[in-house]
């Protein structure tokens, strides 16, 4: 008996008592990481045998590439062998590129043309070696000559292309070719010309579809990172905008761009963003959504910690505010770090509107968050525990409506909430020509039929509908998702514990919100902790926004003069 008791006690002690960590690490464990890295890559050790540097012999290079790219079975890899003429001498050479990624006219006119056709540039025959200096002493002519350098000759004279790079490893060649360049291999040279002839089909700049504003720019990001950076450049229009490239993904080597204002953004923030991006050990990154999950502080909660946007004007506003924008090649959504709670209920339109309108919208959005989170939970709690809180007439209306409903309220509300989520999900999946039908069938007919058949009460339909409408009023998609998930928790707690449960849940929710950090910034900034320039929840008039958000600790705290409208108050 005693032994059993002891085992139970030790079991509980093991569970709940505090156990200090056994090994503390106060420094970055470089050795450990490296070890892991080696272990990780040793799985694909066969790759290590691949040669690294370019060989001077053309045929060897050709062989290496043939095997690396599996050209025998890979249909779109093109190797074009030819002889190029330089100074009237012929050299064997080949072009290596991927069909569909390159612009064939560029290759024809600006690469193959000047290299192959005989023209004044490649037939010009200077002496074998150029004499730089000549001195005659004792009838012996000493000539200092510059030897003919084929590489620089081709670079300087034969490839009339704006972006040509000389690389000397196969990895560099591969990364260039994979992104749409063509590689020019020339016999006897152990360097390769990486020529930019990108010409793939891509979407042009279009209207952003998911963040619609009325007053504001109608341009959205596209899949191409260069287009996106150019959009940012056009909005910011200042050379202090730095766009740094970082490749993420061991296999895909996805190009990511870290953009920030050098004279505004906090250096630590920039460093942190770059540190996180540089230290991601994954094979693939296809979209910014994947990247977001890999660089956010806390992945346990459904709260978004980075703002994602498809609007370059929104991104530029944040850039000029002192935040960092991350672009991912192939994704029309940028990520903005850090993201705080209030950013997710702020619409990009707010800055374009008069502050009164913006504040009204802000109140409505806060109301929407409260409604979408709490309304079904409150309804369940009130009808189960606190009927005396409802005005008598409303209570009688609810009771009358529920008179012949066979289901308990909790079941009723879960049925409706789940079917609403179903309609929402189904609405996304159906092909667009019949898309509107699902709304009509799902919402109107099903709802009406359910009420007529006495399965659910009309009051409940109103509750669910208000909740749904409120959830659509939240500007940020991810934050809306968070509210949708949390709503079910509130329903459960409201059902089991009434208002006590909802209060408990709110408490936990606030606890999570205040504990959460985004890139080291408290999630509830600037409200908790309050910063010195805190001006309340509402947006101040345009002429009064003198300071950048002080929690961002920017290098340029002031954004406008104390008197910004000098035309009016010029003394």
């Amino acid at each position: 008996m005693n032994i059993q008791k002891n085992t139970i006690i030790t079991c509980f002690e093991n569970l709940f008592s505090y156990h200090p960590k056994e090994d503390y690490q106060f420094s970055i464990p470089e050795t450990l990481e490296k070890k892991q890295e080696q272990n990780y890559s040793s799985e694909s050790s066969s790759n290590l045998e691949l040669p690294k540097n370019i060989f001077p012999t053309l045929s060897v290079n050709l062989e290496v590439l043939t095997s690396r790219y599996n050209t025998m079975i890979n249909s779109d890899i093109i190797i074009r062998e030819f002889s190029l003429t330089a100074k009237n001498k012929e050299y064997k050479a080949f072009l290596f590129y991927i069909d569909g990624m390159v612009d064939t006219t560029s290759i024809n006119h600006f690469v193959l043309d000047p290299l192959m056709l005989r023209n004044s540039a490649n037939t010009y025959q200077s002496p074998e070696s150029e004499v730089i200096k000549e001195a005659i002493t004792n009838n012996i002519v000493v000539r200092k000559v510059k030897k003919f350098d084929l590489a620089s000759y081709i670079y300087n004279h034969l490839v009339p292309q704006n972006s040509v790079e000389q690389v000397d490893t196969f990895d560099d060649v591969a990364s260039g070719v994979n992104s749409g360049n063509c590689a020019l291999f020339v016999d006897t040279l152990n360097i390769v010309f990486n020529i930019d002839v990108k010409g793939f089909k891509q979407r042009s700049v279009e209207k952003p579809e998911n963040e619609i504003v009325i007053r504001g720019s109608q341009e959205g990001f596209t899949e191409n990172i260069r287009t996106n950076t150019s959009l940012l450049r056009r909005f910011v229009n200042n050379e202090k905008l730095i766009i740094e490239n970082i490749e993420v993904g061991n296999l895909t080597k996805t190009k990511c761009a870290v953009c920030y204002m050098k004279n505004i953004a906090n250096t630590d923030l920039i460093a942190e963003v770059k540190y996180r991006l540089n230290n991601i050990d994954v094979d693939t990154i296809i979209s910014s959504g994947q990247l977001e999950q890999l660089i956010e502080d806390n992945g346990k909660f459904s709260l978004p910690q980075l703002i994602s946007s498809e609007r370059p004007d929104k991104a530029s506003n944040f850039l000029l505010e002192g935040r960092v924008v991350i672009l991912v090649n192939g994704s029309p959504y940028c990520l903005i770090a850090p993201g705080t709670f209030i950013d997710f209920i702020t619409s990009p339109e707010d800055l374009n509107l008069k502050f009164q309108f913006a504040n009204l919208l802000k109140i409505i959005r806060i109301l929407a968050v409260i409604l979408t989170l709490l309304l079904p939970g409150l309804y369940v709690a009130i009808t189960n525990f606190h009927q005396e809180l409802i005005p008598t007439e409303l209570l009688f209306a609810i009771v009358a409506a529920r008179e012949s409903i066979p289901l308990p309220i909790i079941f009723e509300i879960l049925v409706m909430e789940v079917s609403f989520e179903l309609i929402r999900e189904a609405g996304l999946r159906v092909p667009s020509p019949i898309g509107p039908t699902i709304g009509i069938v799902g919402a109107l007919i099903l709802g009406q039929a359910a009420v007529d058949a006495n399965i659910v009460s009309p009051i409940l339909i109103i509750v669910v509908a208000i909740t749904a409408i409120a959830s659509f009023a939240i500007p940020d998609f991810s934050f809306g998702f968070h509210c949708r998930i949390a709503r079910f928790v509130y329903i459960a707690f409201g059902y089991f514990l009434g208002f006590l449960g909802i209060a408990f849940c709110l408490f936990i929710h606030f606890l999570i919100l205040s504990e959460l950090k985004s890139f080291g910034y408290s999630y509830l900034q600037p409200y908790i902790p309050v910063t010195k320039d805190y001006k309340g929840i509402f947006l101040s008039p345009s002429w009064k926004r003198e300071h950048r958000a002080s929690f961002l600790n920017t290098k340029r705290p002031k954004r406008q003069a104390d008197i910004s409208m000098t035309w009016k108050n010029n003394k």
Partner: protein
Amino acid sequence: MNKKLKNTILLFLILTICLFSLSGCYSERNIDHLAYVVALGFDVGTDNKLRLSFQISVPGGSGDNGSSSQSDSSVVNTIECSTFDSGVNLLNSYLSKESNLSHCKMIVFSEEFASNGISETLFTLMNKVEIRPDCNVLVSRCNAEYFLKNSEPVLEKLSARYYEIAPTSSEYTGFTQSVTLSEFFSDYNDTFQTCYAILGGINTSDTHNSDSSENAVEKDSSNKADETLIQGKTNIENMGLAIFSGDKLVGELNGIQTICHQIISNTLNSCIINIPNPFEENQTISLKVRPIKNTKNKVKLVNGSAYITSNINLEARILTMNENSKYLNTNEIQTLEKSINSYLTTQLYDYLYKISKDFNSDIDGFGKYVVQNFQTYEDWKNFNWLENFKNSFFEVSVNTTVKSGYILMES
């Protein structure tokens, strides 16, 4: 132990503890399982002490097709019991649902029950958590069961709303006053004043005031509840106040007396009074009266009895017009002011001596002014104001400003 597993178990344990042991599942009171009492009636029982009536709302009782028609019918259950709570208990054993008093809008005492003393009932009701302190207290001239059974709302669909709205008519008629349970209770416990309740009744042709001796001027406003000559569907009529001394009903006020009470105690919004026409005999003029300043009451103690002066400032607007009216004339207006003043002064003296000499019940709270003359609470208690009120004498001065009517006949 694995840290992740430990966290999961911990979370699970916390949730289980919260959801089930802390849980209010057992205190759950689903709206579907409750019967809502909208009004309570207290009568004197035949065998037992108490005859309790519960008016229970049946939401959507007609409920065709299950659509949410909000019209409700209500049922009245009457129970003979010894105490209030045992009555509720008996009701619960009789009903299929649990009765709930938190939406009770009106507590009705019959005259007989009220004259026997309601102290115990009052404290029991205040002690009951479910009963809201803001429900109205009414003394009915008929018995409470009859009152509840015949209180069919005509203009409203919900009887709960009817009970809530009906007393608010006092705001524009002045013929009665909305009295809530908490006000009633606090007045009852006060040493400064006594309590009063709404006076109500069921208006039928049998109850109409057939006393034709009174002159035409006072005919309209001298009615009490259920006496007004109204032909219509049998209906509740709230008019006048029921005056208590201690916990016992001692008398009733009619419409005009209630107006006087509200003028003195500064609770009047506006009201319509009739005065004899000073220019033509046997004619009356209707006036819309509202106070322009708060009434100033002053109390002096003279030989142990209170000498109470009230200074009243009113504004009156002429409503009755005929083609001979010359209300732009200063002299006529002054004549009119004089007759209003004299009419109201008479009514006020009637009222004040009625509550002091007949009822000995200080419903206007003159005690608040008297208490200034005492230095300690002991002195005040020994003085026993509520007993002494009957020795008070009054002086009233009414100052009315007449504003002309809304149409201009001369220009």
